């Protein structure tokens, strides 16, 4: 590991100021992603600014009738919090499917949003990778890409975003609050937070240099009775999703009145299935309708040499997740 300095600011202002003095800085949440990448020589900050202990570690109700998750709260505390379990069980379910209990205890909500892709070329510094080293080429494009994207990729990067939590946040239509050096804060729609690779795959998201995530805002409680997070993976725990689906349904009078549907493991960002959502809204929750929605959702998929299976898997996963969500009704 390369030498670096370590600071523990007491306030967010101190943290923001520290980042301005050294543009090579990285904020440290739980470190479960950043430290791994530093050991691999992928991330090379010369200054580490610890933000995990800053005062953004509570869950409070917000003025939209929903709840606000502190960015520094751990994934475990968030997923197991009574307000979250009761009001957003879809989010709890997604978060608890991730990693292991030990990692979730360390991982922070802010860090989860910013965890980097698991693309093996990104992790191996001797390989070409535009995300790690812009201009070096994309090793995966014509290499080992069975776990890579089928939506929204570009010739310069075909990576996927690995988070489970984010798939649920996309389905729930959360927003992210950021604070930048100088003190002003802003709020971004969750679907605008992560970006597609385009010709700048080194940028995972739309954050500005030095910004700190302070909170994730959830709208008023949603999908408390009809929800499911389906995660297909190579082993029963401690593995990233090959494909995942977050599905939430609001049903009234035998019809779907509100729906949240998003996929993981398929794109550079959590992939909201907008067409499928629109198709199902106002329709009856039947298997035939679910299947049509799944067809619609996968229609624009563009596969790589090794990931054609994701189209079949994606369709089946959507239908199954919706069926399971439906079956949750008492």
């Amino acid at each position, binding site marked *: *590991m*390369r*030498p670096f300095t370590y600071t523990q600011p007491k306030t967010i202002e101190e943290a923001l100021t520290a980042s301005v003095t050294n543009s090579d800085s990285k904020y440290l949440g739980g470190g479960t992603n950043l430290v791994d990448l530093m050991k691999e*020589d992928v991330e090379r900050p010369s200054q580490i600014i610890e933000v995990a202990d800053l005062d953004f570690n509570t869950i409070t109700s917000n003025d939209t009738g929903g709840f606000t998750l502190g960015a520094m709260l751990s994934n475990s505390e968030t997923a197991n919090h009574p307000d979250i379990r009761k009001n957003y069980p879809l989010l709890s379910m997604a978060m608890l499917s991730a990693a292991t209990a030990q990692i979730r205890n360390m991982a922070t909500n802010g860090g989860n949003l910013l965890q980097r892709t*698991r693309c*093996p*070329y990104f*992790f*191996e510094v*001797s*390989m070409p990778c535009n995300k790690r080293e812009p201009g070096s080429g994309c*090793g995966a494009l*014509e*290499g*080992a890409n*069975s776990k890579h994207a089928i939506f929204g990729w570009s010739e310069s990067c075909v990576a996927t975003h690995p988070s489970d939590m984010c798939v649920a946040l996309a389905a729930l239509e959360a927003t992210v609050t950021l604070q930048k050096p100088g003190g002003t804060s802003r709020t971004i729609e969750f679907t605008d937070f992560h970006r597609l690779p385009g010709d700048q795959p080194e940028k995972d998201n739309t954050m500005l240099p030095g910004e700190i995530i302070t909170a994730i805002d959830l709208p008023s409680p949603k999908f408390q009775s009809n929800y499911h997070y*389906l995660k*297909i*993976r*190579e*082993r*029963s*725990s*401690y*593995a990233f999703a*090959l494909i995942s689906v977050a599905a939430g349904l609001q049903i009234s009078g035998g019809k779907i009145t509100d729906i949240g549907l998003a996929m993981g493991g398929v794109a550079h960002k959590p992939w909201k299935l907008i067409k499928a959502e629109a198709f199902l809204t106002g329709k009856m929750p039947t298997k035939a309708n679910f299947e049509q929605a799944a067809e619609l959702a996968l229609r624009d998929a563009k596969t790589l040499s090794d990931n*054609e*299976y*994701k189209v*079949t*898997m994606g369709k*089946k*996963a959507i*239908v*199954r997740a919706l069926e399971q969500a439906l079956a949750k009704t008492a």
Partner: protein
Amino acid sequence: MNTDISIGTGNPIDRVEGRLKVMGLAKYASEFNVKNLAYAQGINSTIAKGTITAIDTSEAEKQKGVIKVLTYKNADKLKQYDEELPAISTSSIQPVLQSADVHYYGEYVGLVIAETFEQAQYAASLVKYTYSEEKPDIDFDSSRAKAYRPTEKSDYSRGDISQGLAEADVTLEQIYNTPIEHHHPMELHAIIASWNNGNVEAYASQQIIDDATLTIADTFQIEKKNVRVIAPFVGGGFGSKLHAKQHVILGVMASKQLGRPVQMTVTRNQMFTNTNLRQRNEQKIQVGAKSDGSLTALSHDTLSHTSTYEEFQESCGTVTKMLYKTPNNKVRHRLMPMNLQTPFAMRAPGEATGSFALESAMDEMAWKLKMDPVDFRVKNDTQVDPSSDKPFSSRLLNECLKIGAKEFGWEDRPQKPGTKEEGNWLVGYGVSGASRRAPYQKTSAKVILELKDSEVFATIQMDATDIGTGSYTIIAQTASEYLNIPVAQVDVELGDSDFPKTLGSGGSWGAASFSNGARAACENAIASLEEKSGLKIADAGLAKLMRSGNLTSFEAEGTAEPDEEFKNHSVFSFGANFTEVWVDKDTGVFRIKRMLNVASCGKILNPKTAFGQIIGGCVMGAGMVIAEQTKVEPNYGNFITRSFADYHVPVNLDMANIDVIFLPEEDKIANKMGIKGVGELGITSVAASIANAIFNATGKRMRDLPITPEKLIVAEKEPGVA
């Protein structure tokens, strides 16, 4: 350290060294307190084939704490291989850093030695290499033309295979694939080496102490008696520690150059590139049978790879030669030199992989013949090893199958694939038969007896190793039995080349060899004491024997080795595995619901440690099916699975309850104590049992391991399945 007051073998006692382990007092190779220690970190090549044209060590050498950077330019000249592509064994030399050539991605190309581990690791990342790169052979398919026959023994045949197939009413020809896998014992490979005036002392994590001393001595061309290797505890090996790898030589070389002790630990990443692997095997099986189920032909062709500078062949066809009665049999092994690391033995080499192919094919045949797969195997039993014409010392395969079927509830198995449902799941049952050679090696031991008050305390010494399997415990139990004193009064000291010689742990020979070695030493001690005193131990007891000779201490050595009876028989352990799986109808995911392993492996010295071996083997076998594989990057030749985040071994949730039944047996032909191996039987054929259950559940025949969701979801049903 040992508190068990029971006497003798056969009791399920706790591990005698268990307390030390849980208290952190059991010392592993890199934990010894050696003064003035320096730390070495290996540097790995970043190309798969080519030559080093320039090395810039200046930046690394400038760093604080860095003592030396070793490359091929300033490395000691070591003994080189005499031949091209030498077959490697557990005691082969290990030349390293001897030229500018790079043979595979991740090969050691240098070493940084520094005052601390962190300094060495950081400086290692600063050494800059320039290569002249060549196109590597990393693609299995395009290497086929290079396939060659490693040795004459790579081919075997009896009868006439084409005639056997022609006589058959039903035939099958299929190809089965198993991927590259890695051993990954929990303890990282490590050495602390001290070179002192041509004498070497090394704490090294090795399975075979005597062979490690030989590798060091031969590679440095010094006398073996000047090398001492110590490994009281080894945190697993699975075959990767049978042989002293290159880091052992690098550690010794660094110590020689520096004139001070050096520690070298292989990192988890380097455990993929520098401690060998299980090779990918493509196995073609042909089977012929009469409509009544009797086999007329069995053929097994294996195509695999070795490195471009060393040869190792995994003998997948071994099982096919001997497991079933068939007059016509052909077995072939071919290797392709490729720019990949040299493969080496991994738990049940040949059997774990070969039995996946054979036992899957047997299941396919049973289905074609419309026979129950248990009955089909029972029908083709043989009590004589058809490959050697020697009788089996004991063979209870049919009993394993029949008892297993009864206990498992095999009669509930769906007769037609894909017909038993539970909600979104399809339920299936699978079975496989297993065999694993039960070797027995020449083994010596020393017993030291001490009389304190009126009690005798014994210490057993041998250079055997305990690789986590329970060697300490069963040796203590054996000595307790033959000396007729409580286990608590026996101390066992292992893992030091100054102790009497054994062949260490590996190949499932440990338990039988170590126990009989300890037995021989104890019997010799008693015989001498009886002669001296004129008393009989049975009447007087050990303490009286010693007292009557005015002895407060007494030593004896003994050696046990295979006799004529052993050599005149074919000696194997046998078993059967039964599995129930649930396969999701849609998502490509499956779950193991329960498993039963029936094992016939001679006398069970300690049911608790033996049980651990079998269930550990079953989990490792399940890993072969669930997700375990090392993937080669198709353009550059590095491994894209390079940490436990992507190299997936089973987690608790993947496994279900595993029941084990040991058939009561003592195989006195195998050895005096009637012991056969258990360590590798458990993993053997588990993969086939699971794959066969998946077929029974879904009608999908999965012939490529691992059976990941990405494969299962797009697999088609077998032709003929409704």
